[in-house]
């Protein structure tokens, strides 16, 4: 199919792994806009397929669409979906949480992150806007927790201390930044989950967030320029 250079927001601009990005998706990174699950899916693919190949087997990153499906599907469907995830071999599982309560329309207003660490059998909810998403994160932990029972116990759940966003549009970038920091820690060997709060407090600054937005845009435009067939 020939590359389309049209201004059509629906035009396909990059096929990357399992993700197909359209112009309208990429444009979300060009300003202070809310992110959608497409951009999250892109960055998750990038993290495990390029940046952190070495932890691919022990880390599972679940994008917004998958997590949303989990929250609204019946338990049989959840089991079927999880079959390909090789959960027992994962020491770090991260799920992008969205608060969209509607199953039949696009929506949502906030992204946060739910991380499971096998070493302490615990879910941590990293939330850049405290108070939001609590129900959605709990729900995600319930559904995933049922798949992760160890010695009869479902994982514990805690709200993790997280730097707070100072605006109403960067929660998606916080989600991606925290995902990356958890992957970085995992990749260095010991993921000291308690140290993570310290790491986040030091590194997760508004400047870091703004740089990450530009960096993801560049990752995408570089790949578009490199001529990935759509």
């Amino acid at each position, binding site marked *: 199919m020939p590359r389309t250079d049209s201004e059509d*927001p*629906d035009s396909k601009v990059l*096929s990357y792994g*399992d*993700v*197909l990005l*359209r112009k*309208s998706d990429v444009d979300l990174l060009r300003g202070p*806009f*809310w*992110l*959608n*699950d*497409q951009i999250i*899916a892109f960055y998750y693919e990038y993290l495990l397929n390029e940046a952190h190949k070495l932890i691919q087997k022990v880390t599972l990153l679940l994008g*917004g*669409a*998958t997590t*949303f*499906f989990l929250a*609204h*599907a019946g338990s049989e469907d959840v089991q*079927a*979906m*999880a*079959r*390909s*995830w090789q959960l027992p071999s994962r020491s770090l599982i991260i799920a992008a949480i*969205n*608060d*969209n309560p509607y*199953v*039949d*329309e*696009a*929506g*949502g*207003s*906030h*992204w946060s992150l739910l991380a499971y660490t096998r070493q302490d059998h615990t879910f941590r909810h990293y939330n850049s806007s405290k108070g939001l998403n609590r129900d959605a994160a709990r729900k995600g932990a319930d559904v995933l927790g049922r798949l992760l029972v160890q010695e009869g116990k479902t994982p514990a759940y805690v709200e993790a201390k997280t730097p707070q966003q100072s605006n*109403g*549009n*960067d*929660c*998606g970038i916080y989600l991606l930044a925290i995902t990356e920091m958890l992957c970085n820690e995992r990749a260095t060997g010991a993921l000291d989950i308690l140290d993570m709060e310290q790491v986040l407090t030091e590194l997760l600054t508004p400047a870091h967030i703004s740089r990450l937005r530009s960096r993801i845009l560049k990752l995408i435009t570089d790949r578009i320029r490199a001529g990935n067939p759509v």
Partner: protein
Amino acid sequence: MADSGEDKKPDVSSTEHLNLKVRSQDGTTTFFKAKKTTKFSKLISAFCAKQSISEAEVVFMFDGERLRGEQTPEELDMQNDDTIDAMIHQVGG
């Protein structure tokens, strides 16, 4: 490349065709008959046309993975009556 309407040739061996379901998040299911070698892009267009939605608004998932338009049921080892989930996009700030 083999390419034709999904349900026009009853004489073709049934093993070459699959009945697939596309399930929307609101619980409605749409049925499709597709050749194992037909690219999903065709099924996706048909689904979106039926539902009057833009292809940019949905992502299709099978067994926890996103479907790509250039893939075929054969490549993903799909079986008769398998279900594909259509997920509408989510946003947040």
